[in-house]
């Protein structure tokens, strides 16, 4: 395929993915908005007012970046995992496999689709948060950069999950038993400085902690960990996972007999 044809193929796939999650918006866009509004009401307004300050900010201001990031992570991941697995299940993945579209275009199309949903939901959650607090962004470029990179990383993760999945249960195992605990323990609701030394060190093994903290640093200008290292780690994870996903696709893992 020449570059123009590759661009058309990629655009087709991205538009198709965006159409998919917007067509079923009551399942994809509405629930996270309501869930996050609940978090803002219960943790931010009701309980947060009794907690006092966290890292020098009101509890509501502290949790807003974490909750936005949580929404981006879970939606990027689950969008690609469910969409690609659904394509496998309905065998419509064969439409792409018989076409001359390179594997990296297939992977990028799904990843960009997942990023679109993750960032879209992130934007909705941000707008919802405006009903509860005033947001100020200390480092806009860093904020946007880290949320885009995080959406990319978890979209690739969702793709690998879908490739390996044999049944619908396999698509929900990772979000339920890995992603959710890591997100909750990744400093969304608290600063790790509150933890005993052992658990502070243990938390440093959690990759989501870095993303949440860099994102919070972008908003508030405070972070528990060095921002540069965190960004480098996210980029390294993206490169490694993209390579793994592409290799699996080339080998036909989970899609070719």
């Amino acid at each position, binding site marked *: 395929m*020449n570059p123009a044809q590759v661009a058309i193929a990629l655009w*087709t796939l991205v538009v198709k993915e965006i159409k998919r999650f917007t067509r079923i918006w009551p399942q994809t866009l509405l629930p996270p908005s309501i869930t996050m509004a609940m978090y803002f009401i219960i943790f931010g307004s009701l309980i947060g007012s009794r907690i006092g300050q966290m890292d020098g900010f009101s509890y509501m201001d502290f949790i807003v970046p974490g909750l936005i990031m949580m929404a981006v992570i879970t939606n990027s991941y689950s969008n690609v995992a469910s969409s690609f697995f659904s394509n496998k299940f309905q065998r*419509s993945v*064969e439409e792409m496999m018989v076409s*001359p579209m390179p594997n990296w275009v297939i992977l990028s199309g799904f990843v960009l689709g997942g990023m679109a949903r993750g960032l879209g939901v992130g934007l909705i959650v941000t707008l919802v948060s405006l009903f509860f607090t005033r947001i100020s962004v200390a480092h806009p470029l860093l904020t946007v950069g880290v949320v885009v990179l995080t959406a990319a990383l978890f979209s690739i993760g969702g793709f690998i999950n879908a490739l390996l999945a044999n049944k619908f249960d396999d698509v929900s195992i990772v979000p339920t038993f890995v992603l959710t605990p890591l997100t909750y323990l990744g400093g969304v609701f608290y600063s790790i400085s509150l933890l005993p030394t052992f658990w502070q060190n243990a938390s440093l093994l959690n990759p989501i902690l870095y993303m949440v903290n860099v994102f919070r640093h972008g908003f508030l200008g405070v972070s528990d960990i060095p921002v540069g290292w965190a960004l480098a780690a996210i980029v390294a994870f993206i490169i490694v996972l993209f390579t793994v996903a592409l290799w699996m696709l080339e080998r036909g893992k989970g899609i070719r007999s």
Partner: protein
Amino acid sequence: MAEPALSIRGLTKVYGNGFHALKGIDLDVEQGDFFALLGPNGAGKSTTLGVVCSLVQKTAGQVSIFGIDIDRDFARAKYHLGVVPQEFNFNQFEKVLDIVLAQAGYYGMPRREALPRAERLLKDLGLWDKRGGSARMLSGGMKRRLMIARALMHRPRLLILDEPTAGVDIELRRSMWEYMRRINREEGTTIILTTHYLEEAESLCRNVAIINHGEIVRNTSVRGLLAELDTETFLLDLAHPVAEAPAIEGFEVRQVDSAQLAVVVHRGQRLNDVFTALGERGIEVVSMRNRANRLEEMFVSMVEQGSDARARAEQVEVGQ
């Protein structure tokens, strides 16, 4: 001489569970041909086509599409290939028009070119009125036609139809046959067809390969194959019921019911002798027809021969 549309050499497929689906098959399909690949369930038809379409990974062998080796440049080879699989493989929740336009996009076709092409194909296949509806609302026959339209979007030179008329009513099947004949004749599209309706292969195809137990057991022209047919069974409808089948020397005659006889006629025998013998016994025939389609008889006999030979070989193995 032009490269074959499809050339297969020594194609072997062993699945992960050790099942030997293809045992080194060779096959050529010439450009412009209408070719039938026949065989019982599990014979290796879909595995062969799966390898050609990149849905199945081969274990060994070579496959070329219009001279392009799929191991060297599969992407370029895929441009020439259109696939209509046996099972529905589109997103049932998408709109009909979106499904065909997306397929064009995957081949890098610009939308301004894809839209008129989609309109023409959907109109030709009677789906234009359904273009805005979800694919799951289509009937089974419409879904099959949708897959044909989708496969033709990028103007493939080789179209693979894996049981395209399965579950389609007779009237619709005939109209689909006519459409396939048209694209083969007018656009020069090479078509490879697998089907369980042997009447379909006999009516549409010029050449045929029969595959059984992962091996090509025959590869010849349909006409040549039919010429080899050794026996034909005729059903005779009688004017008056008979108590039992009359014995006619040299012919096998069976009673289907009181007013119908089945007569097996071998090559070289004259049907006229049957009528003479029946006339002598006062049995009057009012109409006559073939019991089944001729290719089907040939196919069944070949597959049975293959199974018998296999059973004998297995017995020898057990004996040893």
